[in-house]
């Protein structure tokens, strides 16, 4: 009988590619996605023709369709493609899961995961849910049951969760601010971070304008243009490639109930990650304490705090105190989002979190390197709280 642990260490990320993150671009989503993909393929040192799986996190919204990648790379025989669009921002880590399944099954040998975000030049992130047009039930819930009441975008309905957490556990604005400040500090050390020359203090945070209480402007991630890509293959094939492999020890996805609506969850704060994080640790055979760093999906400060709890780094309700006093900063007990995250590097739907984890585990992160990093966790969050988690090692 197949078991959960059968996927442990069977696949590796062997290539990463990333374009510049910008606010504004003359390039099309497909051009950016192709550039990042070529970067990942060259980083791995394979020929593009070897790619036989294209996992599209956001379907055609990833920058192109499978057909686009076949046509542009001249792929002779694509074996496998799939999309994780419904997962929202959890889709990139879930795409890694799909790649692992396809590779270990033998269906495919080299899987490309490309993603381009044009949240600045395209339809802005703040508009994503107000005119869904996606056919997704979660978007229709917003259109039909939230938007008539002026709740149409993530900073608004996600704020419900942060407010609930503050009410239940006494979480403070200063604690949310500690997350924003930490992300901005890390971005100062990344050459490809939108906010690399814009440090902030806690006072700056507290002075920033309200967007949707308890979220201020500096609780919100950055509308960004840019693309990134991963190349994934089996552990056997990874050994002969250009860069040291980064092993996928565990990778899982999970869903809240009901998935399509926030208010009607019996427990508003129980998310997909609460379900999939224990499975990820079980697959990997490690514990939260073993992690040298974590790249946590930070669409908003509160969502990062909630995920630190769901991923087992602290208990429910303790996320506020956990992020204080530099614990999540480089040099702290658990450096989080060493690239600056969605909040300060840029919003590429968490593909940048996976890229950064690989950079850290290759020990190529320069001044922001987590010393002797051996193990790292990456989470995804999307839709109304779908979740995903990867545990990676060098």
């Amino acid at each position: 009988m197949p078991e959960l642990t059968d996927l442990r260490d069977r696949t590796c990320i062997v290539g990463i590619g990333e374009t510049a993150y910008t606010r504004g671009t003359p390039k099309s989503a497909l051009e950016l996605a192709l550039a990042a993909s070529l970067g990942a393929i060259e980083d791995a040192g394979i020929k593009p023709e070897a790619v036989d799986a294209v996992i599209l996190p956001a379907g055609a919204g990833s920058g192109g369709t499978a057909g686009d990648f076949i046509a542009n790379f001249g792929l002779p025989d694509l074996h496998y493609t799939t999309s994780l669009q419904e997962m929202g921002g959890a889709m990139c880590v879930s795409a890694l899961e799909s790649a692992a399944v396809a590779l270990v099954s033998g269906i495919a040998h080299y899987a490309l995961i490309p993603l381009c975000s044009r949240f600045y030049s395209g339809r802005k992130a703040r508009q994503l849910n107000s005119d869904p047009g996606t056919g997704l039930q979660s978007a229709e819930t917003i259109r039909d049951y939230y938007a008539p009441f002026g709740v149409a975008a993530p900073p608004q309905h996600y704020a419900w969760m942060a407010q609930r957490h503050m009410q239940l556990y006494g979480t403070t604005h200063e604690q949310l601010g500690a997350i924003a400040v930490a992300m901005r500090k890390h971005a100062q050390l990344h050459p490809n971070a939108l906010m690399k020359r814009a440090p902030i203090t806690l006072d700056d945070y507290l002075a920033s304008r309200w967007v949707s209480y308890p979220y201020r402007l500096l609780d919100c991630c950055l509308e960004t243009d840019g693309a990134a890509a991963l190349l994934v293959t089996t552990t056997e094939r990874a050994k002969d490639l250009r860069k040291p492999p980064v092993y996928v020890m565990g990778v899982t996805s999970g869903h809240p109930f009901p998935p399509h609506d926030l208010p009607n969850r019996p427990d508003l704060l129980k998310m997909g990650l609460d379900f999939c994080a224990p499975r990820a640790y079980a697959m990997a055979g490690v514990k939260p304490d073993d992690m040298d760093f974590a790249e946590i999906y930070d669409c908003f400060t509160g969502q990062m705090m909630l995920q630190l709890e769901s991923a087992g780094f602290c208990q429910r309700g303790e996320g506020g105190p956990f992020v204080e006093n530099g614990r999540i900063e480089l040099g702290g007990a658990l450096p989080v989002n060493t690239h600056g995250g969605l909040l300060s590097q840029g919003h590429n739907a968490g593909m940048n979190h996976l890229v950064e984890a690989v950079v850290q585990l290759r020990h190529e992160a320069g001044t922001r390197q987590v010393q002797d990093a051996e193990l790292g966790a990456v989470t995804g969050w999307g839709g109304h709280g779908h979740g995903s988690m990867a545990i990676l090692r060098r």
Partner: protein
Amino acid sequence: MKTDSPTPIVKLPVLRGYTKEFYDWCHQRELRFQRCQSCGTWRHPPRPMCGSCHSLQWEWAPTTGTGKVYCWTIVYQALDPAFANDVPYAAVVVELDEGPRLATWVTGIAPDQLYVGMPVEVWFEDLSDDVALPKFKPAEAH
């Protein structure tokens, strides 16, 4: 928060299927939700099957229209321009006494007067000939 004039809504709910039925009841000044006719479990937003017992038999069951404030956000930046004149406004999750929760407004009080567990009761605001929104106000003392 303005409570005395119709809200200038640009985007109305799309009245199709179950959503049309939900808002048709609101139009008749009744706040109803789906309830399973097999096991009695309430559900919202509407869908065909009971997630508890898998029955496809259900009804639009009436509620008393009374409930409590569960959580909220106060919107300062109107991402939808239709709400530009309303900011700051509180978008509140209310839990009905019967159990279902919904996104709504609590009118007649300032956002900073909200508290968790605050008793509220429904009223209906006509947005168009077809659509009335269920909104809430502080419950009268009984």
